[in-house]
């Protein structure tokens, strides 16, 4: 009964999306915008309610292990720990697409009640666009990926979930990523509505910015969490592999980063109107391209999901309709968007333009690298893969100037800046950067690139703190925190990339191996039983100087599905991580053990999370500012 209710709720939601799109249009034409609003706002709210309900019903099916639902039978198992039964609801294609439409409907429902500043007609248009977007995804879900499909006869036991996905990191990575991807669809809807109603301007920019910031902050957190999961769960010792699926999440992130910076220029100076609209369309397009890459199996990825070309094709059609439609509208309307104000290079807006150009170039390089294999295969038929050497060589010359500029931008004023004052303020920042570079040399870092990287990270960190002088508002604090996070991330990337060590040894109980100044002794290797797996665990006693600690890497054998996984064990020390992976036994009582020493690598994820928090602070700061403005506006007549 419950699965049928869920299925029915989705059909009903699709009907409401239709009502939003077409009913909104008809009432807008025949009657007035007030009437249209009375139709689309309740419809959007009901849609959100139905989707959340359907998603809750799917989770319920997983919770009670209802194997008459095909999705539960293929992805769950009675022996699975309860928490992972719940998270298993979205650790598969159908469930994750249901999560996608649920987030879309939820955001659209919230947006229906906000965005009031732009007028009734604009709100109707906004709801029409979100209705059109969700309609496409409902049809996709109901036609090709129905999560509530029944299975007769119902099996008595399920197939189980891939053990790599039974992990807290992966439980929260997809929802966060989707909050980001789908949050960008609201920015897209705002852009399309603004093009239709010719309302591109500062007011539009101020209204849309919190949505972009929220989507961006979720995306940042989601990517960071995904990277951390890949690091500790896959056991390869790396945190980013320039894999198509990873790039698929990075591209919308880059576009969103450029977008909220250019939205600031539009909000403050009424410049970059066309560009901002184009970026808003591009950001969501990259979200959809990302979903397409992940779900179609177009590109061979180390993260390959079980894929289905037919579904990929359907997504491609949706992508074509939405992106093509938005771009066509843009082409027709861009000429009618009146040019905004002009500006100087040595100003906040000038710096933000350069920020946008650099981010776009980075996005271009990532896009070329990701899609190159598709192009080559289409033209020559040869299979090719593009790996880290390409991305590193092409991106470092773009990222370093971006980081340099990120430090300077916040010191510049809108319109124009007094350059002698700027020099005075940046002088201590420069000293900090040089000091950090010197410390890097003293710590024995020899590569010029690494020393430069450390110096630039310190330059950005010092500037992010110094920019707070004399400014006490929470949005500025948000910018400062987000930039500081980027500096911390840059430091972690530089130091871990240049100072990492790796050694694979074959040792048995009682034997000792060495890597740099670490002494590793294998105490024993023992079997172990978990809730739905058996395991072989090795105990390694490790010492460095006076510090001693124990690492217990495991190899687990899961029953349903039959799968081996390696569980790494990681010791976070003050200056880096020691990472141990247990390999196969050699048959002579010895085991393969891989050890990685990665200095400051934890800063990568700490920096990412700090950056995401900075985004959240900026949203909070803007909301607080608006409340303050409103109170003053209300208070002034009385005074």
């Amino acid at each position, binding site marked *: 009964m419950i699965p049928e209710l869920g299925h029915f709720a989705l059909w009903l939601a699709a009907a409401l999306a239709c009502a939003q799109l077409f009913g909104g249009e008809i009432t807008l034409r025949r009657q007035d915008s007030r009437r249209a609003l009375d139709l689309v706002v309740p419809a959007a709210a009901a849609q959100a309610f139905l989707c959340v309900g359907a998603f809750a019903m799917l989770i319920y099916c997983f919770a009670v292990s209802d194997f008459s639902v095909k999705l539960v039978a293929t992805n769950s198992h009675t022996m699975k720990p309860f928490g992972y039964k719940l998270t298993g609801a979205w650790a598969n294609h159908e469930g994750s697409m249901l999560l996608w439409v649920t987030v879309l409907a939820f955001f659209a429902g919230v947006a229906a009640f906000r965005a009031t500043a732009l007028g009734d007609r604009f709100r109707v248009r906004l709801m029409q666009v979100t209705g059109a977007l969700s309609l496409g995804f409902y049809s996709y879900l109901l036609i090709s990926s129905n999560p509530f499909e029944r299975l007769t006869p119902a099996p008595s036991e399920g197939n189980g979930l*891939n053990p*790599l*996905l039974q992990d807290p990191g992966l439980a929260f990575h997809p929802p966060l990523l989707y909050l980001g991807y789908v949050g960008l669809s609201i920015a897209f809807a705002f852009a399309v509505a603004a093009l239709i109603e010719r309302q591109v301007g500062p007011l539009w920019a101020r209204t849309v910015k919190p949505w972009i910031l929220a989507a961006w902050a979720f995306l940042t957190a989601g990517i960071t969490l995904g990277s951390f999961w890949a690091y500790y769960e*896959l*056991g390869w010792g790396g945190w980013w592999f320039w894999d198509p699926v990873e790039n698929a999440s990075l591209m919308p992130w880059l576009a969103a980063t450029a977008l909220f910076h250019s939205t600031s220029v539009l909000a403050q100076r009424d410049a970059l109107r066309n*560009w901002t609209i184009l970026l808003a369309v591009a950001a969501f397009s990259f979200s959809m391209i990302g979903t397409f890459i992940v779900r179609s*199996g177009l590109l*061979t990825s*180390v993260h*390959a*999901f*079980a894929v289905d070309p037919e579904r990929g094709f359907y997504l491609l059609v949706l992508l074509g309709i939405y992106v093509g439609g938005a771009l066509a509208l843009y082409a027709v309307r861009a000429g009618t968007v009146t*040019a*905004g*104000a*002009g*500006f100087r290079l040595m100003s906040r807006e000038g710096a933000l*333009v350069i920020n946008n*150009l650099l981010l*776009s*170039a*980075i996005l*271009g*390089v990532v896009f*070329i*690298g990701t899609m*190159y*294999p598709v192009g080559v295969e289409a033209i020559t038929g*040869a*299979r*090719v*893969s*593009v*790996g*880290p*050497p*390409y*991305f590193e*060589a*092409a*991106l470092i*010359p*773009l990222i370093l100037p971006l980081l340099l500029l990120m430090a300077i931008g916040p010191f510049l004023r809108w319109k124009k800046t007094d350059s002698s004052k700027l020099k005075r303020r940046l002088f201590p920042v420069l000293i900090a950067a040089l000091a950090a570079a010197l410390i890097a040399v003293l710590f024995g870092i020899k590569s010029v690139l690494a020393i430069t990287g450390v110096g630039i990270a310190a330059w950005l960190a010092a500037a992010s703190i110094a920019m707070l002088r004399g400014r006490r508002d929470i949005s500025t604090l948000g910018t400062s925190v987000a930039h500081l996070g980027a500096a911390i991330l840059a430091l972690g990337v530089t130091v871990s990339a240049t100072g990492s060590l790796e050694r*694979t*040894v*074959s040792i048995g109980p009682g034997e000792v191996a060495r890597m740099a100044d670490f002494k590793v002794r294998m105490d024993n290797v023992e079997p172990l039983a978990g809730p739905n797996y058996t395991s072989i665990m090795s105990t390694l006693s490790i010492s460095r100087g006076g510090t001693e600690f124990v690492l217990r890497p495991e190899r687990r054998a899961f029953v349903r*599905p*039959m*799968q*081996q*996984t*390696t569980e790494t064990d990681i010791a976070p020390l003050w200056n880096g991580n020691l990472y141990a*992976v247990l*390999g*196969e036994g*050699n*048959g002579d009582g*010895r085991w*393969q053990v*891989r050890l990685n020493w990665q200095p400051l690598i934890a800063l990568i994820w700490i920096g990412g999370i700090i950056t995401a928090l900075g985004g959240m602070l900026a949203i909070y700061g803007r909301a607080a500012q608006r409340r303050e403005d409103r109170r003053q506006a209300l208070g002034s007549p009385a005074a």
Partner: protein
Amino acid sequence: MKPKHQRLALAGAAVTALIVAVLLAMPAMKAGASFFYAPADLAAANVTPGQAIRLGGLVEEGSVERQPDGITIHFRVTDRLEAIPVRYAGLVPDLFREGQGVIADGSMDPDGTFAADSLLAKHDENYMPPEVADALAKAEAEAKARPVL
């Protein structure tokens, strides 16, 4: 500057940024892109030793040999037409086993052995990399087309 000129300047800057991106990308692509070979292709092609390539196929049954150092393994990758010997030092992925699909990143040694830097693992046990599936299908078609003497 008038806003109109400024727009032109901005458009110019955007085009420049794109050109810079492509200029940075092209040489890097030459160094960073590695072509995929099935064993039969690799045996026929004349690949320069040291050139980064990918080799994909099935791990030949009975070919995996552990070396005395306990870390290096030797095995052969086959598409049922040709088999290429591979050398790899390190932990093998969880789903690496005989008779299963594998993709190896690395380069050819002058002696005709493929030196693998990494072996590609998959999240999903039922998943066959499309390259490998294609290569196997192609090899099978070729084997059928060969005249029977």
